[in-house]
């Protein structure tokens, strides 16, 4: 693709060509993300419906597949109501503050060995920074609404995100130690060589902790205290309507997809095939199933998205003090202990890694 582009625009400066190429990649990723969200909304409603012994949406389009498009159109056509005493500037800014980091984080995601928008050296740090940035949108949205419920929701979200950020960071430290790199592409490359050499085997507790804190980070069930329909209506976005609400929704689902993809990349070998390392397959006609490709990443991410929805259908919401004690007293100690264990494994050279 890039070669084709440079031959097409050969008269231009190579810098310009790489700029256009980057913009093209960004456009593709953003468009795919929005399509993913449209799919996810439908997927979630359908799966939860099935788990309730219902059939879920099935009226709009074949099998109800156009339901979320109809919902989107409805949301976009609705009136945007700004509460009279709201801080108008921050009220309008906060959905954008939530959406931009959610989208920007995808810049460093290695979708396949070839396709990555920006393979920066500090990819993991960049992700940690951007995922924690999302909390500003939540806090500002709740504060600017000038409503008690919204404010309570954003306060809860802030405390929750700070607590789970730490466990998440520690889990990432484990991955960093195992791979010896902050570059996401190299982290995946360090896991090459079959299912058992992926990091979920030596780092199993960190894998679970990372996914749980990821759920908490995205304010999803069972950690959605920031929304808490029963207690505080809809939490931080209670005053938002129309497109503002749609953007909050979009950001939440993009974050869900991000956490799923990240978990797949960090612990389940990203683009690596499930069948990699099975040498008898490589010579047969099934050789394509051992090739690393984007489809493996998508399958793994889809599984985690299913788990997100599955959790929502299965478990009630945590109480606030339970949430805090889970974060501080369970997840953080587990990660610290396992980092200690990992250090021992590292020195004794029992892991899949070797001392450089």
């Amino acid at each position, binding site marked *: 693709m890039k070669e084709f582009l440079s031959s097409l625009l050969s008269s231009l400066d190579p810098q310009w060509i790489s700029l256009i190429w980057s913009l093209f990649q960004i456009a593709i990723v953003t468009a795919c993300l929005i399509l993913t969200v449209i799919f996810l909304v439908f997927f979630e409603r359908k*799966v939860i419906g099935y*788990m309730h012994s*219902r059939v879920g949406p099935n009226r709009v389009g074949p099998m109800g597949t156009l339901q979320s498009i109809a919902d989107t159109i409805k949301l976009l056509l609705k009136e945007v109501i700004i509460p009279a005493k709201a801080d108008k500037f921050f009220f309008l800014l906060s959905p954008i503050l939530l959406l931009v980091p959610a989208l920007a984080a995808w810049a460093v995601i290695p979708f396949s060995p070839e396709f990555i928008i920006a393979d920066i050296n500090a990819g993991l740090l960049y992700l940690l920074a951007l995922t924690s940035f999302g909390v500003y949108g939540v806090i500002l949205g709740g504060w600017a609404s000038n409503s008690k419920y919204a404010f309570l929701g954003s306060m809860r979200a802030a405390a929750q995100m700070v607590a789970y950020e730490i466990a998440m960071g520690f889990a990432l430290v484990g991955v960093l130690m195992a791979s010896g790199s902050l570059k996401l592409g190299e982290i995946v490359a360090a896991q090459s060589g079959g299912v058992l050499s992926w990091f979920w085997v030596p780092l199993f507790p960190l894998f679970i902790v990372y996914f749980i804190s990821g759920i908490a980070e995205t304010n999803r069930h069972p950690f959605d205290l920031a929304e808490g329909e029963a207690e505080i209506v809809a939490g931080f976005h209670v005053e938002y309507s129309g497109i503002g609400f749609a953007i909050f929704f979009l950001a939440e689902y993009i974050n869900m997809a991000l956490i799923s993809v990240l978990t797949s990349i960090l612990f389940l070998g990203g683009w690596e095939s499930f069948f990699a390392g099975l040498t008898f397959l490589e010579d047969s006609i099934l050789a394509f199933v051992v090739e690393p490709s984007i489809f493996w990443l998508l399958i793994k991410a889809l599984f985690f998205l299913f788990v997100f929805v*599955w959790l929502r259908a299965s478990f009630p919401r945590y109480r606030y003090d339970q949430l805090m004690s889970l974060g501080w007293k369970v997840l953080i100690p587990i990660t610290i202990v396992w980092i200690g264990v990992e250090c021992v494994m590292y020195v004794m050279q029992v892991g899949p890694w070797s001392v450089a």
Partner: protein
Amino acid sequence: MNMLQLLKKLSLIDFIKGFIVTLKAFFRRKVTVQYPEVKTPLSPRFRGKLALMRYDNGEERCIACKLCSAVCPAQAITIESEERADGSRRTVKFEIDAFKCIYCGFCEEACPVDSIVETNIFEYHMTENHQRIQTKEMLLATGDQHKDQTIKNKKKDSRYR
């Protein structure tokens, strides 16, 4: 907390059990009835829209005894009667307020000539407030329209009455 409890908590066994419950439900047969296309079966005793019946010769059954209006707990029935040229007593006004009616079926049980009946029609609507008053003509028309089905249902249910 002893060691065993701690291990049980850390193994997330309760979560896995919960997951299995919902996963079983995921593959269970779905019970939703796709309503406008598929309808649930109705009992012959189903109490729906009210109607007035006629004799086979076309004469209305109602003799204006006003038992139905007397027994009606919601006082939804208004009847006015007069004497006809042949000396029989008939209604000139027989109105049911559909908003007052609670579909209890007492009027049907009270009726000595099986004139007022409840059909099994439940899919009807009105768009203006005044349409809630069902006049005698409307009730008779409903009776004529759903005569066969109603008689069949009453026969099926008769052995339990």
